[in-house]
């Protein structure tokens, strides 16, 4: 049973082919610069040499066809025929309030994804292009969609509403949705497994800190609050995104600097965060390096980043009236011992005791970094969103098969 996972962007497609027997990755790769005469295809089989080629790929349909070509390729391929691929799973950024879980794709689902274009104008159209591209290349191939927002649909009203006129929620569905849901879900399950306690009895905070960063309060396995909101701009300070600021700054700056909507959007998304404070980079590795060389702006960027993250941890501990587990994941969370240390040092009042040596150790595995007697368990869990997409797709397809085979359900 093999599942193809696709993450389609406006000009790129990333893919992994999973063998669900052992959840191993048979091949992975990406197509970049779709829409140009110089698109780049990188294909890496689990065994054997990889391929990298430049060619003209003008749309997603051709890109998917190219991926299938490579998966079937005599030398670099990993399957003998398309029929070996049971289903395709897609990552979709915005599921709005419509999707509270992953679903199989049908016309209704596609229509709903299209209805959500307004909320994710950059991401949802790309995902739909990916779905249609698969459909055109492999008609009748079962497809599933897994949403970044779905995990956070358990947030209660008091957490997801903004204190602004309710008409805006009714008219435009303006509310907090949260993102990185698949990642928060995966690392929370994995952490509970590591601790060896049922997730239902745990109060957890998961920090997905990479290029984008968000923090989620998970009580009994359910997201009850998360730091990103209507868009991925809210919440934590990020590489080039501001995170939380006084909303009045926006109209004020627009009037003082005579900025247009596009300009102010770009300012907050691309010219803010650590890049703005350090003055040279939004990359945590470069920030830490410069900080150790004595760069004061880098130090300030680092301090602000950690301070703002720690405030969220404190707030979410309060939201749950306690904390059992703190998890770090994604680029910075998995790799920056500096950040983890700086955040945890100010959380001793909650019962967080870091194990300095464990924190310094580099590894690709999920691991504890808290001292044995720490009341709050602290873990680093490398995220794996693709695996969740593969698992959900596999489950949905298997369920449908089982239902289809059963004479009872056929009569419904």
């Amino acid at each position, binding site marked *: 049973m093999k599942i193809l996972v696709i993450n389609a962007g406006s000009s790129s497609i990333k893919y992994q082919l999973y063998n669900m027997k052992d959840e191993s990755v048979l091949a992975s790769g990406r197509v970049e610069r779709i829409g140009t005469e110089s698109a780049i295809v990188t294909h890496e089989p689990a065994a054997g040499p990889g391929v990298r080629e430049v060619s*003209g*790929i003008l749309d997603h349909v051709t890109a998917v066809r190219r991926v299938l070509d490579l998966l079937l*390729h005599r030398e670099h391929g990993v399957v003998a025929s398309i029929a070996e691929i049971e289903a395709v799973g897609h990552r979709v950024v915005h599921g709005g309030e419509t999707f509270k879980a992953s679903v199989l794709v049908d016309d209704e689902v596609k229509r709903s994804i299209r209805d959500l274009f307004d909320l994710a104008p950059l991401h949802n159209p790309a995902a739909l292009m990916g779905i249609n591209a698969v459909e055109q290349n*492999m008609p009748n191939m079962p497809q599933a969609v897994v949403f970044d927002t779905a995990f956070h649909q358990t947030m209660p009203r008091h957490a997801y509403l903004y204190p602004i006129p309710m008409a805006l929620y009714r008219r435009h569905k303006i509310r907090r949705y949260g993102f990185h849901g698949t990642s928060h879900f995966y690392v929370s399950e994995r952490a509970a497994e590591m601790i060896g306690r049922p997730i239902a009895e745990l109060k957890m905070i998961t920090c997905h800190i990479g290029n984008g960063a968000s923090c989620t309060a998970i009580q009994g396995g359910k997201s009850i609050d998360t730091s990103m909101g209507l868009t991925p701009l809210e919440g934590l300070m990020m590489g080039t995104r501001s995170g939380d600021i006084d909303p009045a700054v926006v109209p004020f700056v627009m009037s003082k600097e005579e*900025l247009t909507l596009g300009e102010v959007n770009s300012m907050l998304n*691309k010219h803010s965060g650590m890049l703005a404070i350090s003055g040279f980079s939004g990359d945590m590795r470069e920030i830490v390096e410069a900080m150790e060389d004595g760069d004061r702006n880098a130090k300030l960027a680092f301090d602000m980043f950690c301070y703002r993250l720690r405030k969220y941890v404190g707030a979410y501990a309060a939201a749950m009236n306690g904390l059992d587990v703190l998890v770090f994941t994604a680029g910075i969370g998995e790799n920056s011992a500096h950040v983890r240390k700086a955040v945890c040092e100010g959380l001793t009042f909650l019962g967080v005791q870091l194990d300095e040596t464990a924190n310094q150790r580099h590894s690709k595995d999920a691991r504890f970094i808290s001292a044995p007697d720490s009341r709050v368990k602290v873990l680093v869990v490398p995220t794996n969103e693709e695996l969740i997409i593969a698992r959900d797709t596999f489950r949905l397809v298997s369920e449908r098969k089982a239902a289809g085979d059963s004479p009872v359900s056929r009569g419904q």
Partner: protein
Amino acid sequence: MEGVRPDAFFFVIGIGIMVEKSHYQIKQVIGLTIRKVGVVGAGTMGQGISEMLAFKGLDVLLTDRSEQHLNHGLRQIEQSLDKQIEKWALTKAEKKLILGRIRPVGSLEEMADCDMVIETISEDLNLKKQVFTELDRVCGPDIILASNTSTLSLTELAGATAYPERVIGLHFIYPAFKVDVVELIRGLKTSDETFETVRRFVENTLNKQGIMVYESPGFVTSRLICLFINEAANLLQEGVATAEDIDRAMRIGYSFKHGPFEMADRFGLDSVVAALEQMFREYGELKYRPSVVLKKMVRAGQLGVKTGEGFFKYDEDGDRI
């Protein structure tokens, strides 16, 4: 699997051929998709249109009658991008990408490589006709030829070509980067297919609103705005109010971004006068006669932002001093 199309199995054979073939099929199914656009003329409008097209991810071939004009145009585009970075609208990496998509070329011949060519040279019917005759000769008959003219007759321009059905008017409004409306002008012989392809391009690729207009000098936008500027110049000449106050009154009073005089300075006074003269000739009505104030300033070479002085003074970045 029963669901797999039999020809899916062909993918494994001859990858190169399949890619070629699929490219062909796509063009067949959805008609011409515009990805590479030629821009003839690197003046104010040519610069803005090239910059906007490259920003939207299209490949642009830019040409002008001399290398000097072309280089000046490219410098201006770069300056405009720098200005956008200052306003946080772009990052340096994005600027590099955008500039990388604009390729200066030395002759019209090289436009044969494009899906569409937009002509943006000055409003001179004979010059434009020459350009269209030449483009028509070098570009295959399925390449769309568009003119950014605001006052000249599309039908007449198309008359200079052997394939008038692929000629259309595409009137961008200054600054093309920011103004999200474009007039689409159908000449007498413009084909439905040409019009549809261009409309889709404007609305889906450029994300701008397309306004369909029938051929008429000045169309909608130029006709109204030039009269507005001309009447403002008459007010000034009659000594009713200062240029500054007239601008302020209209800007604040009617929510214009700029008043009539700053608007004229930004368009270029020579272009405004040329448009008015053309409409005056075509309609024969006195209201289109360019105000003496405008004509005098043009004669003095006081053309607005591009010369540093028009009704107001401007620095190198085009900001009011």
